[in-house]
């Protein structure tokens, strides 16, 4: 292996294309991290089963599409409902008793992810499944140097839409006020009559539902495996933590990490880029553990 095989020299147009791939990658990481930001940000719960929520979203999209023949655009909201319901059940049974022991939630949700993976494997088998890409997304945007598939563009659009929706929910509704109040000071919020337990349950379900939509989209990009979720979980956590466990921070850090990863892999290759990126994140957290944007909320 010579230096030249490893290191791709800079040239303008391919580099620009790499930047566009970076946006697409960022949108995927953003989708994976969005639900996690909500759950971690509100409850301080490290949900290691988040990757499996993505997987459940992918599989429920697959079921609605292939077995019931519903159109893709209908499948996504239905996946939201399915995974949100599962999330609600999980919150009520496993997560709720552990709010005082955040490190233990990490372990319990890992046990949960084992169950979800194996459960799906028992039902659908270990062989790969596919979510069909609808006709109207079967185009490729070709400008001189950019080439992005319709599906990738759709993912970017959905990511933007979900961020906007979540922002409105958190900052422009009564429910959002309650969520933010509980985030900032649970006891104080409760003393003003906010039902914190209900807020937790609904936010957990909402975060899980977001993962459901994201999973449906990921299923269209890649093949479905019962353990597909593990491929997203580390990146999702890094995006959340680098962003400072906060909505705007997550958007920025997903963009930043996606672009950096894409630029590094342009110069070297995918796996080496990952190594550099993860190491950079660790060093970054050393100097700024509160993340890019910190609201001055009590750290958990």
């Amino acid at each position, binding site marked *: *292996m010579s230096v030249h095989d490893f290191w791709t020299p800079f040239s303008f147009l391919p580099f620009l294309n790499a930047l566009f791939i970076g946006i697409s990658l960022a949108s995927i990481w953003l989708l994976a991290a969005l639900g996690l930001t909500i759950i971690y940000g509100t409850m*301080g719960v*490290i949900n*290691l089963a988040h990757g499996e929520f993505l997987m459940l979203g992918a599989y429920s999209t697959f079921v609605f599409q292939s077995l019931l023949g519903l159109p893709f655009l209908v499948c996504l909201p239905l996946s939201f409902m399915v995974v949100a319901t599962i999330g609600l059940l999980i919150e009520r049974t*496993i997560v709720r*008793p*552990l709010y005082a*022991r*955040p*490190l*233990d939630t*990490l*372990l*319990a949700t*890992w*046990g*949960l*992810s*084992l*169950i979800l*993976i*194996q*459960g799906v494997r*028992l039902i659908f088998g270990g062989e790969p499944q596919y979510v069909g890409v609808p006709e109207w997304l079967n185009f490729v945007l070709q400008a001189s140097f950019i080439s992005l598939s319709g599906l990738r563009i759709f993912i970017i659009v959905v990511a933007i839409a979900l961020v906007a929706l979540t922002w409105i929910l958190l900052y422009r509704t009564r429910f959002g006020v309650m969520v933010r109040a509980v985030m900032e000071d649970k006891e104080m919020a409760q003393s003003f009559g906010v039902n914190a337990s209900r807020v937790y349950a609904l936010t957990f379900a909402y975060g899980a539902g977001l993962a459901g939509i994201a999973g449906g989209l990921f299923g269209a990009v890649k093949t479905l495996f019962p353990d597909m979720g*593990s491929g997203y979980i*580390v990146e999702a*956590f*890094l995006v959340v*933590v680098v962003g400072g466990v906060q909505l705007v921070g997550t958007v920025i850090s997903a963009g930043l990490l996606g672009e950096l990863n894409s630029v590094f892999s342009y110069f070297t*290759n995918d*796996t*080496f880029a*990952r*190594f550099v*990126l*993860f*190491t950079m*994140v*660790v*060093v970054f*957290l*050393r*100097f700024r*553990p509160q993340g890019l944007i910190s609201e001055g909320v009590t750290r*958990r």
Partner: protein
Amino acid sequence: MGGNLYHNKRAQWLTYLGAFVLLALVPLIVDNPFTLNQLARYSVYAMLAVSVSLVWGYGGILSLGQGIAFGLAAYGMGMTMQMQFQDPEYDPIPSFMLTNELESLPLLWEPFWSTTAGLILTLSVPTLFFVVFGALMFQARVAGVFVSIMTIAMLAAWYSMAYDMQPFTAGFNGISPPLPFSLGEFSFDPYGVPAYLVCVGFLAALTLGAKFLMHTKFGLIVQAIRDDAERARMLGYNVAAYQVTLFAISGFIAACAGLCWVMIVQYVSPTALEITLSIAMVVWAAVGGRLSLLGAIVGAFLVNGTQSYLGDELQQVWLLVLGAIFIAVVLLLPKGLAGLLELCLERLSSGKRSSDSRPDLAKEVAE
């Protein structure tokens, strides 16, 4: 009266010694080489569980990156064993490097010509890495789940590195040294008694050493930091230094496990650096009881033993069972099996004392 037997130090040491003597005597009754190798593997898992118990149970640092030390040491041992097979004159380069179009031995591999240097590197590099990585984290006062996330990120980084550097690590295929590890003239057959005893010996020495350490002042301070880092800092202790030391010791134990592992499986691949393995170590420690080193060992043997024997029968549902057991342990038995034992012995001793000692207590309170 001595109170709860569980907290009796002499009883603790006797139990620990007894357990290791029993493990060392196993080859007298088991002559099936496969079973012996299986037990040696469990001993390695037990070392990993001990390293988790030390850093998480005693130090309150939930590291999900113990696999880094394990994996790095496993690669070091794999390289050492591979170079024992190579011949400086006729066959100086491992075959997988030739297929990766490498013309000379990489500099990274050169020291491994010497078995002594190889072994020293195998144990020292991971430990030093933990010192540096620990200093990076703990001087910044990173704590709680942030440690978990940073260690898991670092682990993922090393995993992709081992995967990607194909000419140096044989990538996905991994390194499989053709011959067993040999020290001088003696060759450690992976299925033989000596290799088993080396694993058990390492396990016993490391566990007893760690237990001794936890009874010293160092151990007490470490536990004080776990319970309230801020208070320990205010009392004038250099919290970061203690945490880094503990983290490095746990890394050293995991590195020893990596060394033994490759000796008994003659194979190393990026799977040693997989995230699932590092989380599994935490599971073993949690099931057995993270606050007890012996508990962690029992947890490792129990989970892996059940997995091998039950797992073949119930392959389809085993992961379901494991996941459920794990959730149940976390929800109902935060201190694991060791905690259960503590509770039972507590019942026993308080039952015995209830007639005479409780009034004493009431009298003291009254006075």
